[in-house]
């Protein structure tokens, strides 16, 4: 994106926020057109369930309606929407049984005393490095990757979704989660 593009996007967004704060029905329609797909994708990634994701999307847009007046533009509208979506979706997951989750220490990379990595841990699986840069994924690879993502604790999976699917930077991901960049990065390795 060029600097001019960035400025144009920022201006369009500022105008949209202003219309939303004036309860302009067309602005809400345009907000939905622009963000519903992304909100659903993230909600689905976190909840792993179509019905739960639909409920999350409804809740998120209701929250957006009622909270738009408090939006001060300290983050971008997109980051703010991701933040609300993450909160609503993680809350929906809380209290659900976490049968597939594995212990944190099995996910985090570990280090030997000299600082060298110890063993092959985490979502980042060693045997993927050997695979050629294939263009089309085999069903088997997809299945294994999905399984690895499913087994991650919710908050780890959320970081992965924000970064790898929504393509947020570490800073934007941290802002969407209300956490530090260091804490985000610790969940990527």
């Amino acid at each position, binding site marked *: 994106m060029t600097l001019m593009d960035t400025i144009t996007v920022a201006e369009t967004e500022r105008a949209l926020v202003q219309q939303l704060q004036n309860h302009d029905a067309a602005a809400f329609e345009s907000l939905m057109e622009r963000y*519903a797909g992304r909100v659903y994708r993230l909600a689905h990634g976190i909840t792993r369930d179509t019905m739960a994701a639909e409920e999350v999307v409804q809740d998120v847009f209701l929250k957006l309606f009622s909270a738009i007046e408090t939006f001060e533009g300290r983050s971008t509208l997109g980051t703010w929407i991701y933040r609300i979506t993450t909160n609503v979706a993680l809350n929906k997951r809380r209290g659900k049984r976490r049968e597939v989750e594995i212990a944190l220490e099995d996910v985090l990379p570990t*280090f030997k005393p000299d600082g060298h990595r110890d063993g092959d841990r985490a979502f980042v*699986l060693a045997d993927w*490095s050997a695979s050629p840069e294939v263009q089309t994924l085999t069903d088997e690879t997809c299945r294994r990757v999905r399984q690895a993502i499913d087994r991650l604790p919710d908050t780890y999976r959320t970081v992965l979704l924000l970064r790898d699917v929504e393509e947020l930077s570490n800073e934007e991901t941290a802002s969407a989660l209300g956490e530090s960049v260091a804490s985000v990065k610790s969940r*990527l390795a």
Partner: protein
Amino acid sequence: MTCKDVIDILSEYLEEALDATAVASLEQHLRDCPPCVAYLRTFRKSHQLAGQVSQAPMPPEMKQRLRSFLAAQLRDSVH
């Protein structure tokens, strides 16, 4: 630079968000540390795959339901 230092800045390295000095010392480490090179490849590949398999388009009928739901909510809130 230790392996742990490398891992700390790996995502910035792949995003090309590091300054030249940091890039130089990271690449120096990579020249002498095959495990970190393997890890870098795996890291990049894993996150690429994670992005590819997690696409979930919203079903069109759900979008329609959402549109009606929100229109009704909006009407109610105006009263």
